């Protein structure tokens, strides 16, 4: 039966309306609010944001986190994905275990790591019992910035590598086996096969995974909030503080717009850098 031409539009209309009502309108309001200085258009909120003592630290911390976490996650997910591909038995079980963190909320993940890493936490208890340390050691305060940074990196990797893994596993599965078999006939090494076949054909999946993860990494909040509190300022954390504690919605909106601009820029960079040829898009 031939379907009427307007049917697809009708079917997506509710989701479009939903997006407009709960995403586009608040987005527009936030942008307007960020430029509202009390008496009409003004850049006062942005000046206030850029002049705040936590702003440079928040910016630096956020970018440092993204720069360390994303490459590690992609590399890890690639290795895990390729391992899964070679497994013949128990593949589903391993995949299931690896993706458990996906079901854990950000804040809960932060609290789990807090329980491990705080002074009276599991790690200190273990190290004390095997005699490595003589008393509680603090890893999560401003006097140990490097340890705090790596605690956050660790928690983020634990929490959010699974999403990259899922996308890459899906990508690996659709690579035709014939390419690998052909390469075997010509005597290609596993490394050459990875470089010349897997990686290029995985580009569309890598692009999606990178965009998704990077945007989410710039918006990291709950894990840092649980582990570092005020010791590790980040952009979204500052937006929260300005909104909730300082009760200045204008500056909070300026931070929100900043996060959006950074995310959009990152997306455009990935789209350009990892340009996917139409024929590999499937």
């Amino acid at each position, binding site marked *: 039966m031939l379907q009427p031409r307007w049917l697809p539009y009708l079917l997506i209309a509710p989701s479009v309306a939903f997006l407009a009502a709960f995403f586009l309108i608040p987005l527009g309001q936030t942008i307007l609010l960020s430029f509202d200085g009390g008496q009409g258009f003004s850049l006062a909120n942005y000046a206030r944001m850029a002049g705040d003592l936590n702003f440079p630290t928040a910016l630096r911390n956020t970018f440092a986190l993204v720069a360390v976490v994303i490459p590690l996650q992609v590399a890890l997910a690639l290795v895990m994905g390729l391992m899964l591909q070679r497994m013949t038995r128990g593949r589903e079980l391993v995949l299931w275990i690896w993706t458990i963190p996906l079901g854990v909320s950000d804040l809960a993940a932060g609290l789990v790591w807090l329980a491990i890493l705080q002074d009276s936490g599991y790690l200190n208890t273990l190290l004390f019992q095997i005699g490595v340390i003589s008393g*509680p050691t603090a890893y999560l305060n*401003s006097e140990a910035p490097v340890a705090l940074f790596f605690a956050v990196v660790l928690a983020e990797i634990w929490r959010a590598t699974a999403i990259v893994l899922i996308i890459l596993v899906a990508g690996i599965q659709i690579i035709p086996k014939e390419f690998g078999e052909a390469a075997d006939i010509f005597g290609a090494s596993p490394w050459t096969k990875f470089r010349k076949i897997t990686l290029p054909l995985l580009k569309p999946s890598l692009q999606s995974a990178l965009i998704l993860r990077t945007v989410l990494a710039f918006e990291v909040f709950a894990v840092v909030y649980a582990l*570092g509190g*005020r010791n590790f300022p980040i952009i979204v954390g500052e937006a929260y503080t300005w*909104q909730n*504690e300082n009760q200045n919605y204008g500056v909070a909106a300026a931070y929100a717009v900043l996060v959006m601009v950074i995310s959009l820029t990152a997306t455009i960079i990935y789209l350009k850098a990892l340009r996917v040829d139409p024929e590999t898009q499937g």
Partner: protein
Amino acid sequence: MKTLNHLACAAVAAGAILVAPVAKAQDLVFLSTQLRPIDEAQKVREVLLKGAPKTTYVVEEPPQFAVRMKAEQAAGKRTISLMGALHGELQPLVPAGSLDTVDDIAAKLASSGIPAGLMELGKLGTPNQQYIPWMQATYVLVVKKAALPFLPAGADVNALTYEQLTAWGKAIQEKTGQRRIGFPAGPKGLFARFVQGNLVPSYTGSMVTEFRSAAAEKGWADFKALWATVNPNANNYNFMQEPLMAGEVWIAWDHIARVKDALTAEPDQYLVVAPPAGAKGRAYMPVIAGLSIAKDAPNRAQAAAVIEHLLKPATQLAAAQEVGFFPVVDAPLPPDLPAGVKLLADGVAKTQGAKDAIVALLPIGLGDKGGEFNKVYFDTFQRIVLRNEPIRAVLDAQAEILRSLMIQTAAPCWAPDKPSQGACPVT
């Protein structure tokens, strides 16, 4: 058949859920920014409101409280009748026109023994009563007895100075290898209140006007020395009862309601004393929660009855016992108080009764700029103590921000600053 029964039960339950809000709408809605944690809210519902007219007690974070009041007003549909909030949270609702005056209730309570000064605060600078004082609290120093052997010679634990507290912290650090003094400087902690209400006025006798004075400079230098003996995790502490109970901290400053659990768990382990004194005296900040009735309240008469119930001496004593806020009415604490609450009551009495006490009130008249006012003090601490910037330069820079904030809000001075004509000056 069993399945059918289940279905029927589910349908009845669903129906009950759908109908419940309609039935509830007849009740009095009491919105509070105080006693928010689940266990405290439950105590309000089960203990403090027992015997009062039927009331639905709901809680809200302070920023959302103001937003909700404004939103209801803008929508022209008031659901809340009674409000419980801090002095400084109710204040911005006066210019917004959200409060009904409660002179009639104040008149009825004239003989209840609410101190005249407290009642006057409830007028919020207007000729009429805007709220009825409900409960009071303050910030104290909790000392674990394990710390007492390290107390420096000549120091009286009930009348400490900042220098003595520093020497104490140092002695503990030298003997135990641990920094055991704690402040709630985490994201949800009340550390800004310490700087505003204790540290700065103890050295300057002022919260705002003398912000960048030489006396303030000395205070910050002393505090920087003290911070070297403070537990490095202090920036993550929100409520001090947790680090106290975990044994991480032996000497902690906090709001009495935020140390209560530690004291009730092990009352024989602790002392509660007044906060330390600086050059000008021992500043402390009284916290006053009030009860207000919303303008166009759907249930005004019932709200008035609930206020009268909450101010009965028995209810006030129950509040002290259950949630650690103390009576505003004349209600002598009974001798059989639980040991932890008695410790708190002693601490409050010692703080209020100290010979060199200076009362530093919560910020008043800042409207929705209260958060930014706190930020001035917290940023000053961050820059001087955590980032090691030169004290003079930081005070000068932060004083500029404070001055523009005062001019913007036109808030006149409040105690301990001397009354001002117009905005409170920053000299």
